[in-house]
Each structure stands twice: as structure tokens, then as C-alpha cells.
């Protein structure tokens, strides 16, 4: 039977039409089914274009409507859906689960070393690996925090770091619950939203990354008045925070920042450099109670204080290993010591300093070159906003230094200029061979530069290709 559908053409529609038609058609049909309407409505297809730029957003997306107006973007929200609205095929709704289930449930017994969480981390090479974290790991982390920097039940903790990352999950959420604190959630980070949130709830504890402290400070400088003074303590981690930012932030917000160091493999922090107490600029602090930390050479022998080596850690916060990956586990956990891949040294007071990532080292003519050292030097140029350095291979297949440079807004510079600047301040063998200008650098959720994504032949894993899909389904 030849079917005829109704066609509705709307070549100059508006963004709200994207929900308007479907919703009207569904309502009309359902009303018809219950004979609330006399008209029998046909199957319908709507084809529409748009007369202006538009954003259709879920009710929980925060959109700056003034800016939208300025740029001629019309904004529409999905009306908040109740039960009974259209549901994507083959899915279950969480709100249905919440509405239909009993509120009584007693936690199932588990063993301390049962896995509780898997967190996937990208190494320098290859696919992300699942770090297994057990109930014991989290319990020990909370115990360590209670000794180093206890939270109080009256604290209001800002959870702005993503909870899918170990830092936000372990030091934010799980510690927040352990100490019975009040937690304020910031689902979508923007500097102004974070600042407003701190002020609104009179937050006392902020757990964040250096870029957030930098953004907040910039904002505070332009506003001058109304900077919240409620923060009792702040923790910074994920990447190093400059001493200037630390001092200025502490002054503006009347608070203290403790810099932490930790890995996914250690259920987050293992040491803390607390400003205002025993504090050493540039250090990650001494090892926390409950954590053993050492610096070793390539043969796993401990090196004297002041000598650079790899940092290794033994503690009940250390993961039992990578999920289903005994090879990777055996490579990084040797005799109970987790090899962090971070290079650094310990000073005579037991404070640790990180110098670089072992795997990121560039070796040229037998010399070790630290990408981090070159990056830190590059950003001392007032025109340079950010920089990343990796090893590439030159024509003779030797490792060579390549710098990716992001310039300050409104600045221009030539490759020659950057190279000359480097020649003035760096040993000849450390001066980059290549310079590439970029608008941004790829970074992780906590602000670490993803050098892997800068390397040649980097595969964009966001894409799906036909072959990959077929391989996966055949395999």
C-alpha cells in the first residue's frame, strides 16, 4: 500500500522549532489515540532550516544569554522532561529507577582488597590503562588526609574538579563524605561560576588545579571588591603552581594553598607542601604519614639526597595493579614499590622536588634534556603564554627538540625570535631545532600537557571509522 506522509517544510525556522514540531506532533497523536481529538493525524516528516545561529540546550546547560544576543545566537532549552516523554530506543531512565525502587538497601559485604573503582589513565604511549583502586586504597587515603590536613564536618568543600579524575574523586568526594562535610558541586567550570559558587555558599575548602587558581586570581584582580574570604584552606595539584600565583592568591583570598602530589596509582595525594608551615618553594613536600617515598637509580638502588632519580612509592594507597594487565603492572610495581616515572630528588630535610617525567626525557648526543626545563624557560619570554616541548626525529634519525609555543593574545613572534631567545638562556644542545606556533596546547582534565597528542602520527581516538567498528564487532 502506498503510504502518504504529511510533509512540513520550514526552511527559515528557529532553533526552538527543533523541539516544537516533534512535541506538537506527538501530543496531537497521543490525544487522538485517547479520542481527545476528532482529527486523525497522519505520519509526518518535517524538514527545516534555520534563519539564524542557534543553540538548543538541555535545561542543565549554562548559557550566557547576553553574549548570545550580542553574537546573534538564539537560544532554546529542551523543556524539562517529566516521565512519559519520548525515550531513546534501548535505554533505561535513571529517574524511573529512582522512583520505582525501595529506599532501603544494606551495603553488600566486601573484602578490603576488593576493587572499588577503575580509573583509566593515558600513559605516554598506547591505550589508556585501568588503574584498580580498592576499598583499602580509599580508606588509607582518607586516613592519611586525616593526619596531614583533616577536614571538619563544618567545612564546605568545593567539588569543581571532575569526579571522574582521581584527584576530585578521592581528595574531593570520598574525603568529603569520610569527614561528613558539606559539598558544593560545580558541574561546568568557568572562572566566574566558580567564584560565584565560593561566595554564595561561603566555601571553606577549595580543591583545584593551577589554571583555576590563575583564572580566579585574574578575576579577583579585575573585581577588587567582593572577593570571598571564607576559604580556610586550598589544595593545588595536577601540575606545578607558580610561587607568584600562590602568594598573590593567598593575599587576595586571605587563605593558604597547600600543593599536593599524587597519581591515579596512589589514589591521589601522597605528599603535601603546606604554605605557612614548613614550606619550600617548588617542592612537593615531604611524604605523608602512611607513605614511604624514595629516589632510586635505574638499578632500583636508593640514591643520596640531592641526587636525581626516579621517585618510587610504597603504601596502602598504592594500586594493586592495572586491570587485566599483568605486564604493565609488573613493569611499574617492583617488590611492592610503585615506579612513578617522575624524576626528582629529596633534600636533606626530606622534601621532594620533581624535575621531569622519565619517559619524556629527550636524549641528544648522549645528553639528557628535560622538556620541562625548556618549557619553563620559554614562558619567561613575555610574549609566550604557554609552551610544550617534545622529542622529534631529525633527518639523521636523532632525537631533536621541538617546541610548541602559544603566544600571548595580540602578540606576534617569528621562529627565529624564539630560537634566539633560547640561545641566550639555554645550553646550545637544549635549544630547540623546531618551533611550531599553536593556538592552544592539548591538556588533561587537571592541566597536564598531553605531549603524546603533539607527537607525529598521533591517532585521533575521538573518531570512529568503519573498519575499527567492524574489527571490534568481529573480534
Amino acid at each position, binding site marked *: 500500500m502506498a503510504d502518504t506522509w504529511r510533509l512540513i517544510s520550514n526552511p527559515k525556522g528557529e532553533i526552538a522549532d527543533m523541539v516544537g514540531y516533534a512535541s506538537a506532533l506527538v501530543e496531537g497523536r497521543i490525544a487522538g489515540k485517547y479520542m481527545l481529538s476528532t482529527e486523525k*493525524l497522519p505520519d509526518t*516528516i518535517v*524538514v527545516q532550516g534555520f534563519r539564524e545561529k542557534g543553540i538548543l540546550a*538541555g535545561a542543565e546547560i549554562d548559557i550566557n544569554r547576553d553574549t548570545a544576543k550580542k553574537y546573534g545566537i538564539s537560544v532554546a532549552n529542551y523543556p524539562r522532561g517529566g516521565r512519559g*516523554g519520548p525515550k531513546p530506543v534501548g535505554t533505561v531512565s*535513571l529517574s524511573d529507577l529512582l522512583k520505582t525502587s525501595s529506599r532501603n538497601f544494606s551495603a553488600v559485604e566486601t573484602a578490603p582488597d576488593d576493587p*572499588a573503582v577503575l580509573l583509566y589513565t593515558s600513559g605516554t604511549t598506547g591505550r589508556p590503562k585501568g588503574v584498580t583502586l580498592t576499598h583499602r586504597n580509599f580508606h588509607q587515603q582518607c586516613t592519611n588526609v586525616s593526619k596531614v590536613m583533616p577536614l571538619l564536618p563544618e567545612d564546605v568543600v568545593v567539588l569543581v574538579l571532575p569526579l571522574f579524575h582521581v584527584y576530585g574523586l578521592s581528595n574531593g568526594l570520598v574525603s568529603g563524605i569520610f569527614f561528613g562535610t*558539606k559539598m558544593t*558541586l560545580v558541574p561546568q567550570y568557568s572562572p566566574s561560576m566558580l567564584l560565584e559558587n565560593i561566595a554564595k555558599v561561603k566555601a571553606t575548602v577549595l580543591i583545584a588545579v593551577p589554571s583555576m587558581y590563575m583564572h580566579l586570581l585574574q578575576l579577583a584582580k579585575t573585581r577588587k571588591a567582593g572577593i570571598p574570604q571564607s576559604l580556610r584552606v586550598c589544595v593545588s595539584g595536577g601540575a606545578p603552581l607558580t610561587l607568584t600565583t600562590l602568594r598573590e592568591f593567598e593575599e587576595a583570598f586571605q587563605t593558604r594553598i597547600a600543593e599536593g602530589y599524587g597519581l591515579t596509582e596512589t589514589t591521589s595525594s601522597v605528599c603535601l607542601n603546606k604554605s605557612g608551615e614548613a614550606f619550600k618553594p617548588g617542592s612537593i613536600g615531604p611524604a605523608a604519614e602512611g607513605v614511604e617515598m624514595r629516589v632510586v637509580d635505574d638499578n632500583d638502588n636508593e640514591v643520596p639526597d640531592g641526587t636525581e632519580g626516579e621517585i618510587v612509592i610504597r603504601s596502602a594507597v598504592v594500586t594493586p595493579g592495572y586491570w587485566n594487565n599483568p605486564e604493565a603492572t609488573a613493569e611499574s610495581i617492583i617488590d611492592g614499590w610503585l615506579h612513578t616515572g617522575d624524576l626528582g630528588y629529596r633534600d636533606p630535610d626530606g622534601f621532594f622536588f620533581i624535575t621531569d617525567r622519565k619517559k619524556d626525557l629527550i636524549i641528544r648526543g648522549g645528553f639528557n634534556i628535560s622538556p620541562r626545563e625548556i618549557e619553563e624557560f620559554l614562558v619567561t619570554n613575555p610574549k609566550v603564554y604557554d609552551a610544550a616541548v617534545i622529542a622529534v626525529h631529525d633527518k639523521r634519525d636523532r632525537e631533536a627538540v621541538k617546541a610548541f609555543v602559544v603566544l600571548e593574545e595580540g602578540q606576534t613572534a617569528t621562529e627565529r625570535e624564539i630560537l634566539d631567545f633560547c640561545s641566550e638562556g639555554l645550553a646550545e644542545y637544549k635549544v630547540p631545532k623546531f618551533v611550531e606556533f599553536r593556538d592552544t596546547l*592539548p591538556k588533561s582534565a587537571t592541566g597536564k600537557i598531553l605531549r603524546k597528542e603533539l607527537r607525529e602520527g598521533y591517532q585521533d581516538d575521538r573518531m570512529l571509522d568503519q573498519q575499527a567498528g567492524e574489527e571490534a564487532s568481529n573480534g
Partner: protein
Amino acid sequence: MDNVRSLGKMLEEVAKKQKKKQAILFENREVSYRELDENANKIANGLKSLGIIKGDRVALMMPNIPDFIYAFFAIQKLGAVAVPFNTMYKGREIIHILNDCGARAIITMTNFANLINEVREDVPTLEHVILTGQRTMVFVTPDNTVNVQMVVGKKTFESGDDAFRVVGEILIDTFKQFGVETWYKHRGGVRVGGKKLATVLVSEVENLVVINVVAFLGPLHTDDFFRVIWVSPEVKDKVMEPMTSVEEETGTLPSIDEFKTKLLTSLKARLGVDAEEGQLKRDELFGYEKTLALARKTQ
């Protein structure tokens, strides 16, 4: 002595000690420790009813919203293993993680339904996709973006899956008429190589199938949108999947009318359906105006 408390017990004990104390502040809502514990219990019971048991892996792909916390502790109370991962992951990254951990269920946002649905057949262990929240986002650029909505009786297709498949074929046919060779990833997008050219979402309600397609005739200019929605500069290029458009593939921007004509030709070929121009009926117009007013309303 081993006095390690499991994460599930940890919440239970804290909640018992301070039932009325606020645990979570979110937007203008306050959630007490008792409510937090009860919501975790409800989801634990819900997951249990879906067959999730101790040791199973349950993935979480959510921003920092209360549902993340309820779901996380629900998983802990079941003795299952939570696998939270980056909400910016796409495509192969998601396939790798879900397969590596053998996730049986994923709890995620409605706006990620497409991303997850289209990798479902590549993740044989994944039985349940549980959706929450309203964080979907669609950008459109005048003349460059076309939207197709279909509301048709359920019996037009054999099943929801069949609807996905047929619409995918119709789109492939349509783009082929422009000289663009595409492939369709079941339950998701139409692509040229790895780049997305159109997305398909199929929903069901009562006896109806609702199909929503967004296709790119010309490039989407994302810069303006990122002025309105704050995304940190470092991650800007990761928010979106790599995309393309008919214009980028062929050098010519087709009109909406051309697209419509070709789409209707493909519709006729695949479903034997004719289309006759019409308008909304009086009864429908009420619903249309009401929805539009709600959608345009400033929050």
C-alpha cells in the same frame, strides 16, 4: 587489625550519624546525608533489578551532578566496581574503556545517548544504558544545518533498531545523490571516513517513533558558540567530534530545498512513502505554541 570500611559502608555510617546534615549543595537544592544515602539505596536496588551484582563493572560518564554521587555510592553498596571516565571521551576511546573493563552497564547523560548507542554493538558486554539529566546541546548555523523530524506510527518499522537502520540508509542514499559516499554507524551517525556528517536519534513514546536528524550541508562555525558556553581553551577542540559537511566534501553548498527533494526521493525508494506538503492542524498548533514558549523562556 583490619578496620577498613568499604566505600558503601562509609557512606552508611556517616549518614547514620548525621542524617539531617546537608551533604550536597547543587544549584539551589540541598541534599541531606539521609537523602543522599536513600538515593544511593534506590539506585542500588534499581541496578540490582537489572541484574547487576557484586564485582560487576558499571561505567559512569557524567559531570559533577548529584546523580554522579548517588550512582557512585549505589555501585559501591552493591559491591560492584565503578568505572568513571572522562565526559569528553568519544568514539574509540569509549569502546576501548568499556571493552577493557567489560562494563555491563553505563550510567550517563541523555546527551551522550548517541555516543553510547552507536558503540553498543562494539561492546558485547554492555547490557544496560541508563540515562539521566538534560545536558544535550545542538548548534545550528543558518543555511548550513538542516533538521529532519519524523513522527510516525511504530508499525512503520519492525523495531526501534530497524528505525535506526532504515533512517541510516535513507541518509546514505540522500548524500549519495550529492556525490558524497558515506557510511552509517548503527544507532548513531553518518560519516565520511571518521568525520561526522549527520546524527540520528530515535526515541519511542507509546505507539509512536520519533526520529530526529541533524545534517550538515555547510560547515558549522563553532567559534561563536564557544563565546556563549564557557569551555576552557585547552579542551575546546575536544568538546566536538571531528565533523564535515556536504560543502566541505563537494565544494558546493546545497540549498535546504535540494536536500529536501533528495531526501524525499530516498524516502520513497526505501519506504515506498510519498509526501504531500501540509501544515500543522489546529489541535497540534496549541502544542506547538506551548512548547515553543517553554523552549524560548529564559531560565
